[in-house]
């Protein structure tokens, strides 16, 4: 199975397109300079979205249903990457992940090496960049659930955790799923934070960075193809989100 050597530390990851034989990709006429970055982008975005969906939904639930002080401040703090330029987010991540300090020590003890200029570094950057989308969509969707359904469930004797899983989240599912899809799209399209944290090392190159490199080195044909692929993926994602609003609720 083909693998992708990702990152300057020699960290190995199996690419998503590794699931598809190279001969098929060649037969389909998809060149390595497309499926290489595409596989890194998809793989990193999927991992980031899994983390963001679980943690973002849980925090969104706490913010929507909790009555503790500082909820507004917490939501604002976690939403900052929406308003900050990605390069600023990337710089903070670089200094924290790569500079001396407790974060770097934790990385080394956990992963054996710093995360800067690695595939995992890309995932971390994408998590930070996409987290606010999942958090805000989830929080809004969960807040919008008619509280009377939850009251009815309490009267039925269901414990709080079952009400969350069986009543609140299913009723908020469209907003939660839309948040996860938006987060996936954001992760897939991240350039600034990823570029600063992971650079442009061979085989750790995402689609946006590959496009930047193509333009930088004057390969306008390649740039056009890479842009078209990203356009198609973005269209598919947004179309999927719009379909979520049109399907019959239940």
């Amino acid at each position, binding site marked *: 199975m083909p693998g992708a050597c990702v990152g300057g530390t020699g960290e190995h990851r199996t690419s998503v397109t590794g699931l598809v034989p190279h001969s098929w990709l060649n037969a389909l006429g998809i060149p390595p300079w497309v499926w290489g970055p595409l596989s890194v982008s998809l793989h990193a975005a999927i991992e980031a979205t899994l983390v963001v969906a679980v943690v973002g939904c849980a925090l969104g639930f706490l913010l929507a249903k909790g009555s503790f002080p500082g909820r507004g401040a917490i939501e604002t703090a976690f939403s900052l990457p929406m308003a900050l330029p990605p390069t600023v987010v990337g710089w903070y991540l670089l200094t924290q992940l790569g500079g001396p300090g407790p974060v770097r020590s934790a990385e080394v003890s956990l992963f054996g090496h710093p995360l800067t200029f690695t595939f995992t570094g890309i995932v971390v950057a994408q998590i930070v960049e996409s987290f606010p989308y999942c958090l805000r969509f989830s929080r809004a969707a969960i807040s919008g659930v008619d509280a009377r359904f939850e009251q009815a469930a309490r*009267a039925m004797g269901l*414990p709080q955790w079952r009400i969350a899983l069986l009543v609140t989240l299913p009723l908020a599912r469209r907003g939660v799923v839309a948040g996860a899809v938006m987060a996936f799209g954001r992760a897939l399209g991240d350039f600034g934070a990823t570029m600063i944290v992971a650079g442009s090392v061979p085989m750790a190159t995402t689609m946006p960075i590959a496009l930047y490199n193509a333009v930088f080195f004057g390969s306008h044909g390649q740039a056009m193809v890479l842009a078209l692929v990203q356009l198609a993926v973005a269209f598919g994602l947004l179309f999927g989100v719009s379909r979520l609003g049109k399907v019959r609720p239940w």
Partner: protein
Amino acid sequence: MTAALELAVARQIGEFNLDVALTVESGMSVLFGPSGAGKSLTLALIAGLIRPDSGTITINGHVVTDCARRTYVSTQKRRIGMVFQDGLLLPHRSVIDNVALAVRQTRGRRARRAVARSWLERVGAEGLADRRPGSLSGGQRQRVALARGLAGDPALVLLDEPLSALDAEVRRELRKLIRGVIISSSVPAVLVTHDAEEAEELGDVIIGYNRGRVTGARVVDRPVCPGPASGAPESTGRA
């Protein structure tokens, strides 16, 4: 005999002040009065969905709310069944699942569904088991809501204007069903309504409400139908 419900509570919400004391024995007790009299608020206090400012609530001899001692038993542990005005069936669950979720007295999905199915049969909704609530008529929804309210073997059933959203013919049909099922299952029930005809037809005891106070109570004369099992109904306002 232990009263099914003893309540003496006060609650201020904005300009509105609820201050009521009442005792409910077995059978069907009806809280009757105009809109905004505090009837539904009383049910919410009994269910533990809202906390009173002061007072106590006892269900079947168990103190579930005692403000002076800061005792508040959660809604889940009060062993109540609730039937809401618009049913509030979970739209993403089938009818049988809606009822089975309320079954507390048995464990295991199959056993719960068996209990749920028997309750659906008792309310004449066995044919709806696999349907989603969105495909039911108002009357069918309330039949299922009644089954759900009773399926958990509750110590007390609370019905919050369960028929007010239905047309006259369905309402008449469901009145008979509600009274029959509640009386045959021997579960004490408190029903809220502002419809005099409904109060007379359903209640063993009618407790009058107005502007947050109990205005009086009377036993409905029923020569044939079973009434309260024992003890005279009691209701006192504290105005």
